[in-house]
């Protein structure tokens, strides 16, 4: 009789402790996710101050800009083969992006996006980082249509939070030049604590140049 009583009490206690666990876990995950958003917002705010929009505008070579929208019906890679940058401006900016990503103790990327000169509808990711994360980048694309949310950031000069891909959180923030104009934006991106990021891309796009050697066939 006493044993049964003890057992009943134990079961009751266990139940009262165990039942809320899923709710507690959900709360915890939500809390952690909010924590990530808070962190990324803070990095985005710092990025807007730290990144030099004038330097960012000087990253691409004039020659490469000339090729960016070039279309050769016989060579689909003509723009990407001619993509080129000024090393000093690129490296200076990339190092700042890396430093910004290190403001949090977990994996985070800070990408630089710049509108395509002379083409108001298009944008390009100009500098990516080690994890290769982005809500927007079409893998391998040199330029792409500017997503609506990026247009908002560029026009309003305010940051935006984006959650498009499962588990991935991005905060977009404007990059200003010395005139106070918004010349680009950063995408500060990380995954929620329990998400499983995908493996990085290692392969080529479209194979090597002129795949076939002089054919003997």
């Amino acid at each position, binding site marked *: 009789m006493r044993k049964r009583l003890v057992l009943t009490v134990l079961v009751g206690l266990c139940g009262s402790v165990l039942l809320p666990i899923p709710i507690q876990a959900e709360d915890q995950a939500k809390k952690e996710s909010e924590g990530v958003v808070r962190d990324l917002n803070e990095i985005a705010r710092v990025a807007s101050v730290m990144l030099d929009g004038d330097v960012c505008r000087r990253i691409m070579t004039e020659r490469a800009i000339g090729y960016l929208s070039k279309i050769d019906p016989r060579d689909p890679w003509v723009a990407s083969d001619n993509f080129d940058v000024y090393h000093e401006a690129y490296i200076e900016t990339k190092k700042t992006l890396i430093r910004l990503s290190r403001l949090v103790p977990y994996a985070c990327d800070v990408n630089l996006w710049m509108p395509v000169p002379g083409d108001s509808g298009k944008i390009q990711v100009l500098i990516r980082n080690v994890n290769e994360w982005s809500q927007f980048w079409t893998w391998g694309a040199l330029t792409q249509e500017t997503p609506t949310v990026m247009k908002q950031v560029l026009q309003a000069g305010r940051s935006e939070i984006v959650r498009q891909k499962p588990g991935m959180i991005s905060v977009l923030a404007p990059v200003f030049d010395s005139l106070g104009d918004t010349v680009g934006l950063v995408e500060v991106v990380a995954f929620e604590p329990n998400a499983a990021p995908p493996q*990085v891309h290692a392969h080529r796009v479209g194979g090597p140049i002129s795949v076939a*050697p002089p054919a003997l066939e």
Partner: protein
Amino acid sequence: MRAMGGTRFGATMRKLVLAAFISFHVAGSALPADVFILPEFQRPTPFNGVVAADATPDFPGHRDTKTPYRAATARNAFVSFHLVVDLPAGGDFEVSVKITDATRELEVDLFREWFHLTESNRNYYPDALVPVSMPYKARLPDPDNRIEKQTSSAFWVDVWVPKEATPGVYRGVALLRTGHKRTTVPFEISVVEATVPEKDVVTIDHNSYGSSWLADYYGGIEVPSEQSFRVTHLYHRLFYEHRGVFHQLGYGHGGKVIAEFAPEIEGSGRTRRIKNWGLYDRHYGPLLDGSAFAGSRRGPRPIPFVYLPINPEWPASFLWWGEPGYETEFVNVVSQMEQHFRQKGWTQTRFEMFFNHKKRYKAFPWDGDETRFPEDDNYFREYRGLLRKALPPETPVKFVFRNDSSWAMERQFESLAGVVDFWVCGGSVFAWYPQAPRLLKGRGDIVWLYGGAPDVTKVSTAITENPLRVWLYGVDGWVHWQTTNPGEDPWFAFNGGAEVLAYPGERFGIRGPIPSVRLKLQRNCVQDLALLDSFKARVSIETLKAAAARQYNNSEPEAWWTPRPPLADQPPYDWTNATIDDAVTAAGQQKFNSSSWDNVRRYILQLAREEK
């Protein structure tokens, strides 16, 4: 089965019969033979025919059940053929292949050939090879391959002739049972005394990227895990057993290393060091000590080449590029790697520092792969300097600096002399520079060429073209840039297979890769080349090359080079793929057909018979 009886006809009559035979085959009409043998370069169709690209006027399909099909080989080699079962009325059948000699020195492997329906031309081509045990029971039409009006099943037969085999003629038989009917096709393997050398004269590399595809192809297996390592080792083993090499690049364009391709590191600046070798050693240990190949016919041997995970972001962070911290992080970690490899005794493999990134992928400011712009060469010099600082001068561990070069190879041959010692060059552009082999080999560099694998719609011998090319050029190897990607639906809507030579076996209940017809043809070509090259002690290499080119397509070795186009004298950053194509096309093309390699092999075997 009824014999064609062609052996008793006169030459004219024989040609007429063969011509009729070919037209039947190519049209896919049924002939009244229910089991027959096709030479390896005559790929069968599922309709009692030969793939149109492989059909030749001297089509030697063997449907004679009285006289044996004959093939010859040296020892330490495979000899192969297709066995075709044709049952116009369909039904169950059982097939087996045996060597009937009592010696049991030769071994037979049987593979069921999968017929892929190509999207480009809606034709069927056999390529994936499913290993089967004998006797093998099946049905026509094959309910698995799902081909409307299929009358023929095909099997790839590999006969292994070990180096210990006694020279002479070995007899065998292919046996077909349909109901109570039993049909046999005899064959004879003539084994000559010569032995194919263990070491290949050309290295054929099969490249791939990352490891996440293992989960895609193998029922969502965890990557990395013991399971994924086992499958990875099976890929290495498959290519090794086909006289090839397998590469997996282990980092992304942004520099992130995939966990099992690099030791785990910790710290920053002075404190950066290797923390854990666990995953790396589980992945690479059996490959670098050769134990992954135990029990194979070629025996255990360490892999000859492997990518290192070094890239602009690993082991040193790009944050410190140009600062003392970059050198410190790089040298600390690479030194530890050298020590680890030395302590493990991994001294037979070449560890490749290789940069795969490109500016267009937006993570780094220079092209590590297929460099175009001259200023990017400076980074290569910097890394060679770092590597020198990281390695003891007398290290027995073989570190090499690999550069995959295309546009700017001619410039880089000069500007990176003494910096890069392993060149992997785009095949089409390399063909403009006949002076390159002497220049590069003369200073001790390793030279491979790269390109794509021929898709299945090409003539069967297309897979032999580049192994022969690199041997004629006097360079060291060929890289198929991607070999594990079968495309969306290789089984019923095939993209041709230019990016796959080893298929995932999962569909057939095999947790590992299965070979392809093209891989087998390539292996047989590579073993032939090893044998051919071994004769250079008594026949000059120039004579051997001239004869091989003549036998292959009646060409001269010089004709395998392309006359230098005017484009080559313009800066490479002004070239386009279109202007390269124009230059290649203007150079003209030569012809070859499905008999080309057989002609070379006959020459090799003739030399082999002359060996004492």
